[in-house]
């Protein structure tokens, strides 16, 4: 498939230290599927190729925890409960920072943080992508069944063409990953492929 290069964005969801670094709080739980699908290498290759192709590179970061986070919410999302317990993606610490392999560059779109799962809900991601004329998005990052799938579902309802890559996303457990990429993604994605086919198609 050919992508309109000026109207296509790679959206990197939650490429933060707590997920990716061996020193990250969520790394012990995230590493199994991450290693199985070779996630980091795939995300690096995709990001490099998309930059070369002149695509918009967008970051959709998770909420960085700080004192008072979620104070206004009566009913927390399950992920917020866990984040509150673990102080995950700490705003003042290492865990909430972008991983060194995925640092934003000048001109990239940096969305405001998403509180729950979808990179679009309650953030300025849609507005920024609209301003750049983006019609097609490709998603990569964390987690296959939560933030990635929620962002994809929002994007679909907002009218974007959505590409999902089954080995450029990762989940807590193999079953979570399987439920997302094998059961739901085939219904949701306008294009579902893997990193190798995606890169071959771009070259």
């Amino acid at each position, binding site marked *: 498939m050919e992508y309109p290069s000026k109207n296509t964005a790679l959206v990197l969801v939650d490429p933060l230290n707590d997920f990716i670094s061996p020193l990250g709080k969520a790394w012990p739980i995230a590493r*199994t599927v991450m290693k199985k699908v070779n996630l980091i290498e795939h995300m690096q290759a995709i990001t490099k190729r998309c930059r070369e192709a002149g695509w918009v590179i967008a970051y959709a970061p998770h909420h960085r925890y700080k004192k008072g986070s979620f104070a206004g919410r009566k009913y927390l999302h399950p992920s917020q409960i866990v984040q509150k317990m673990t102080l995950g993606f700490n705003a003042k610490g290492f865990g909430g920072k972008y991983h060194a392999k995925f640092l934003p560059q000048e001109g990239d779109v940096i969305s405001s943080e998403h509180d729950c*799962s*979808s990179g679009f809900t309650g953030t300025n991601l849609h507005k920024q992508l609209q301003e750049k004329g983006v019609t097609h998005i490709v998603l990569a990052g964390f987690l296959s069944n*939560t933030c990635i799938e929620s962002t994809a579902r929002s994007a679909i309802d907002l*009218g974007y063409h959505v590409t999902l890559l089954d080995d450029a996303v990762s989940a807590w*457990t193999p079953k979570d990953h399987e439920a997302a990429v094998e*059961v*739901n993604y085939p219904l*949701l994605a*306008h294009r579902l492929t893997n990193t190798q086919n995606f890169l071959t198609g771009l070259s």
Partner: protein
Amino acid sequence: MLNNLMSESMKFLANLTQKTYRQYPKHLTALVLVDVQKEFLLPVESGWQSVSDVAETVNFKKNMSSLIAFARAQGYDILYAPYTDTIKPTFETPAHQLMKDHIQVRGNEVKVAPNLLEQSILPNDKDTIIEDRTGLSAFSGSSLHQKLQDKNIENLIFAGPFINIGLDSSIRDAVEYGYHATLVTDCAAATSNIEYEMAKDTTIPRFCQTLFSNSLFQTKAAK
């Protein structure tokens, strides 16, 4: 296997907090029926045939009738969010195509009041029909959130025939918007067992605070 253990521990800890959410006072609770319409419920319709294996296994129609009757007796608001041909995505997904294939093209007509559908599943004059939905989620482009906000509703009870399509998208949005979402698992179905089981047991518990069977929900809500 360490990650499975840690994952289950986190679910357990989240569930301890979520237990306190499970109260359903009349003035704070609404039943949201996603895609509950004749195209997906009448035996002659291809939509019903696509979900009937799972639906019959979980006794979907009987449970749905019971749930709606219970909601009426409790005085809950009931909102129907049907999938209509006003949903015209710029780029169609396989999910859109599946839904579209089962609905008939009749302009903007809302199709939740067929003659042949079980009377107990039909909306009545007090119910709200969300006619302006534009996506897979019942909240997408629609007045649903505003209508619920206007009534100060906090707890949403979800049911419908497509657990991993319309229900999933709607529940994700509901929790993002700050509601306590409850999925009634035997008032839901799917086009295959694997879709139903994966959604109910693996995917939806990651974002939906409460999953109850119809009987358990009614027991908890009646307290």
